[in-house]
């Protein structure tokens, strides 16, 4: 009961949808039998729900399916962009993949990561598999600390395909019916921003291993990272919390602008699901190509 002695709207709403528990249902039915006001509220809500269902969606735009099909059929320009970038990344990578552990017993610099970007025409992802090097030895607990992290910073290298895709899309013939349908708010001036949504998933990049502070109790002290720069705004706090809820150690770094997660490989499906929920998609192939038992994901979040 609410403060007025009536059924809360949440119960009435769920009752309409048949989503109450048996106990709630019995309570609702018993209360409704003697309460005209609640019956009236339920009837109002029923009209709202039926009206909402009746309003329905605007008619499916003619040609939308063809647009979708042709945009998928269009060869993605990403590979060519990657090929150009790949050579430089690979070259930089060979020089810059060294990473060091603190202390005189530190192991020698490791070989390059198992996956490097290379100008391979035969590989649709732009990834080639190198023979997997032995995983980095797990440092003694508490000593894992990166002194110098040499990163394959490809963040600015790959040309983004989004712009070209957007341009391509905007050159498509506009639907003649566009704008004529009454199902939409059509006040073009009311559009908050002319920004068009990006049509591709974010690109992932591989960077050198790093250790993560604050997860000393986790078995993973070090891993290669896949970097991803989502094009969508990310609720950083919510993302970190969501990852932690799945048992994936994550933290915001670099002033909160980057989220790093470092975890055993078996947690990847859980991490992937959380990232997907946030609209962040990481190339599965790049994750698979990481060597070692641990995986690092670094999300460079754009400012909201």
């Amino acid at each position, binding site marked *: 009961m609410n403060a007025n002695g009536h059924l809360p709207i949440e119960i009435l709403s769920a009752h309409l949808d048949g989503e109450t528990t048996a106990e709630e249902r019995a309570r609702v039915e018993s209360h409704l039998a003697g309460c005209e006001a609640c019956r009236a509220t339920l009837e109002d809500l029923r009209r709202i729900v039926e009206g909402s269902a009746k309003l329905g969606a605007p008619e499916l735009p003619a040609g939308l399916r063809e647009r979708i099909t042709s945009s998928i059929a269009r060869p993605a320009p990403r590979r060519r962009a990657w090929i150009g970038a790949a050579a430089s990344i690979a070259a930089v990578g060979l020089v810059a993949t060294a990473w060091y552990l603190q202390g005189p017993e530190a192991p020698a610099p490791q070989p390059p990561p198992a996956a490097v970007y290379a100008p391979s025409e035969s590989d649709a992802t732009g990834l080639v598999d190198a023979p997997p090097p032995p995983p980095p030895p797990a440092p003694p607990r508490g000593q894992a600390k990166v002194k110098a992290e040499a990163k394959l910073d490809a963040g600015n290298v790959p040309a983004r395909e989004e712009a070209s895709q957007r341009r391509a899309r905007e050159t498509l013939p506009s639907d003649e019916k566009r704008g004529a349908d009454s199902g939409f708010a059509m006040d073009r001036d009311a559009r908050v921003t002319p*920004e068009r949504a990006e049509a591709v998933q974010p690109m992932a990049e591989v960077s050198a291993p790093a250790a993560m502070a604050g997860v000393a109790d986790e078995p993973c002290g070090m891993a290669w990272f896949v970097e991803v720069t989502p094009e969508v705004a990310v609720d950083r706090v919510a993302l970190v919390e969501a990852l932690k809820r799945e048992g994936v150690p994550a933290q915001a770094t670099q002033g909160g602008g980057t989220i790093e997660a470092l975890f055993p490989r078996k947690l990847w499906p859980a991490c992937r699901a959380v990232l997907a929920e946030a609209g962040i*998609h990481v190339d599965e192939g790049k994750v698979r190509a990481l060597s070692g038992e641990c995986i690092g994901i670094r999300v460079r979040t754009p400012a909201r």
Partner: protein
Amino acid sequence: MLVPVRRDDDDPDSRPAPIEEALVRRARDGDRGAFDRLVGLHLPRVWAVVSRIVRQREDAEDVVQETFLTAHRSLADYRGDAAFSTWLHRIAVTRALNHLNRASVRLARASDPIDGDGVPELADSGANTPLRALESKELLRRLATCLEKLPAAWKAVVALRDAEELSYEEIARVLGVEIGTVRSRLARARGSLKECVEGGAR
């Protein structure tokens, strides 16, 4: 009274149908024809949801297009442990909400009250409510205006329930939230719609 649609993991409806499964598998192997059939199967439903969240037609079309592009590129991530439509709806709703978010439209969180805290208390209105007196046509006109005003996250839950008739559990899967959150969000949205419609959809 609406009939409950309860589904759970044992319900075959919550898993991909064999034909759909085969289409997904073929699409994953690069068969564009198979993916085109998946588009044909799901486009009307994806459109129904997205167009109720993103109210600008061109934007809604773009979001729908992005949804299928993302799905196509992410097919490797689809593990088949949920219905393909659930997975697709998740992408669609995420894209739609991100679109609105990017457009600087305030995205209400589950904890956002309409007025004050918690679920709104409805007035003890008696049997002759203002809403009951409304003609159907006027009700729909006001409702359309009021739906526009809902926060994006509430639009999503209303669209998934009222347009798609998904169960709370399915909506929870699509949105990645608890069932209780779906229930309270939906109740708040409906309470807000009722107040708005009764107020003349100003």
